[in-house]
């Protein structure tokens, strides 16, 4: 690959992710900005399996693999320890999937954010428990197929709004990003890096295995999610100042849904529910953001 963007490449070749994995690219982009003085703390999920069998590792930074519910507070322990040793310049990157963030890790995340713990928390969101075989999470969109929301028992609830939850902690920076827009993603990591306290990045990571799309469509699907506003891009400063990231004009969700096998079995009413969920959330978000410029 003619690599003009990435200079450091802290993700070594040979990771064990699926072909076309969005989450592996997210790590690559995030580490490109944070650099080698970064300590990664990650719970169970897809990523620890990518790292490789001990003693191999695909990351050129240290990785701590911790139990599922603990990411943010294990990272808080690392932070306190490094600060006590005068290593405040080392970034502590808490790194978890949607299961580890929206669900089992939420209590520890809230505990760390409430204290404005000085960590960067990245949630790579592939909208289901992919590592265990595509089971529903609270980040799964309505009507989406997973192995625990089969056509016979579809998910009716909308995707949990994790950004509103994190913004309610009044932490300095919360932002969404999509693997489909690496430049924007890295700009936001750069902004997060320049701040102190809990910084939360919610990053959409398309997953060909679980979303049932061709591996070469990883970036395109992740862009389509943004275009149709199923995953809008925005930032929240100090929990109060909301600002939209410039995006292409809003499109209907149909194109996005049709690209992926996970939405194939959706009925027309279910598609309508999906569109309504997107529209309502988008209207609410637009109102919050108003004309605030991106900072």
């Amino acid at each position: 690959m003619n690599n003009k963007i990435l200079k450091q490449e802290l993700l070594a070749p040979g990771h064990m992710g699926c072909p076309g994995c969005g989450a592996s690219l997210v790590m690559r982009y995030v580490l490109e900005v944070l650099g080698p003085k970064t300590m990664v703390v990650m719970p169970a999920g897809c990523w620890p399996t990518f790292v490789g069998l001990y003693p191999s590792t695909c990351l050129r930074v240290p990785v701590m693999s911790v139990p599922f519910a603990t990411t943010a507070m294990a990272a808080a322990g690392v932070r306190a320890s490094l600060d006590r040793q005068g290593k405040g310049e080392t970034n502590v990157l808490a790194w978890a999937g949607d299961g580890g963030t929206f669900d089992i890790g939420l209590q520890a995340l809230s505990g760390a954010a409430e204290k404005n713990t000085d960590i960067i928390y990245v949630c790579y969101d592939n909208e289901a428990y992919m590592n265990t075989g595509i089971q529903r999470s609270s980040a799964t969109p309505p009507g989406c197929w997973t192995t625990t929301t089969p056509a016979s028992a579809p998910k009716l609830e909308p995707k949990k709004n994790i950004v509103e939850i994190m913004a309610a902690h009044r932490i300095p920076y919360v932002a969404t990003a999509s693997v489909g827009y690496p430049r924007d993603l890295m700009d936001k990591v750069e902004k997060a890096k320049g701040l102190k306290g809990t910084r939360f990045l919610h990053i959409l990571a398309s997953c060909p295995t679980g979303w049932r799309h061709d591996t070469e469509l990883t970036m395109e699907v992740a862009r389509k999610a943004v275009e149709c506003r199923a995953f809008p891009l925005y930032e929240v400063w100090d929990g109060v100042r909301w600002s939209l990231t410039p995006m292409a004009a809003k499109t209907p969700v149909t194109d996005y849904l049709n690209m992926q096998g996970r939405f194939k079995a959706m009925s027309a009413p279910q598609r309508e529910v999906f569109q309504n969920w997107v529209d309502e959330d988008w209207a609410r978000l637009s109102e919050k953001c108003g004309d605030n410029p991106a900072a």
Partner: protein
Amino acid sequence: MKRVIMGTETAALAAVLARVQVVAAYPITPQTVTVEELSDYIGKGELDAAYITVESEHSAMAACVGASATGSRTFTATSSQGLALMHEMLHHAAGGRLPIVMLNANRALSPPWNLYCDHTDSLSQRDTGWIQYYCCDVQDVMDSTFIAYRVAEKVMLPVMINLDGFYLTHTSEVIDVPDQEEVDRYLPPYDPADKVDVDNPSTYGCVCGADLFSSLKYRRQMETLAVEQAWQEASDEFAAQFGRSHAPVQGHNLDDAEVVIVTIGTAGGAAQLAADALREEGVAAGSLNLAMVRPFPYESFRRAVSGAKHLVVLDRDVSFGAEGIVAQEVKSCLYGKSSAQVHCYIAGVGGMDITEEILADMARESLGGQKQGLELGDSIWIKVLP
């Protein structure tokens, strides 16, 4: 310096003297005073450490894992439900070979709710790989904390220091508080050979295959079994410097004892008095305070009771469907090595007082005297409502 001080205050002061660098803890009765005192010591700058307030015990141990793995001397404290909530993290800390020291105030598990002394909380964590030490008095709380860090950082395993809820956590005694210089001489700064570090990137706790996994477990078991000796040495060194010994097995009049009362925790004092009373009746009695339950001190225990015919084991706990946990441990230790009869007594659960008289009666009954308790399975229960 002599000082009148409570068990939980002592644990906090011991952590200060041990110069811990990171504390992460969640309050729970009857441990609370320890975390309150520590936050104040750190707030006032009397201890140069980070205090992480957490939203649960599970997170407390998670933060300890993060801090310890990156090279800081780490302390926490919990009790009962909190310890149970930590269960997953206890395995993780021991498997990660992290020398964390934790106070556990022994308290009953619900339901029904009960805040008082019971050993089921810590004994049901005995397979997590933590070294478990049970204190018999307040001085033991102070001293064993230093020994715990010294052993933990040598063998790279975590230590759980257990205090009987209320009997020890809320009892004040006159103890000797050592000078900081003396403690520093015994316990040098923590400087691990290996830690998670950006200057030497490596992985901690990632995936490994079955062959390596099995080998790591074998090695950990080997090194855990060696802790009995390591603790004994650390206790001997402590005794040489401070004049007080805190061995894995602490005996009283065992040399010619035919009947030995075996206890863990604070009941050791009453057991000594009971043994002395039995001696006055002409019974060759002694008592044994089993201070270390994990690793089980096989060699010291077998040596200590080699002449005994009857072991009267007090269990402030029960393993439902089996018997008292300490009695099981004792039987396992002696199987094929001793012909002594092991009598399991379940008493004092949920904070019921264990007196010298109750313990002496257990010994008399074991020797064929009047029956005091209710026999159930392989155990005898004391003071059960009719």
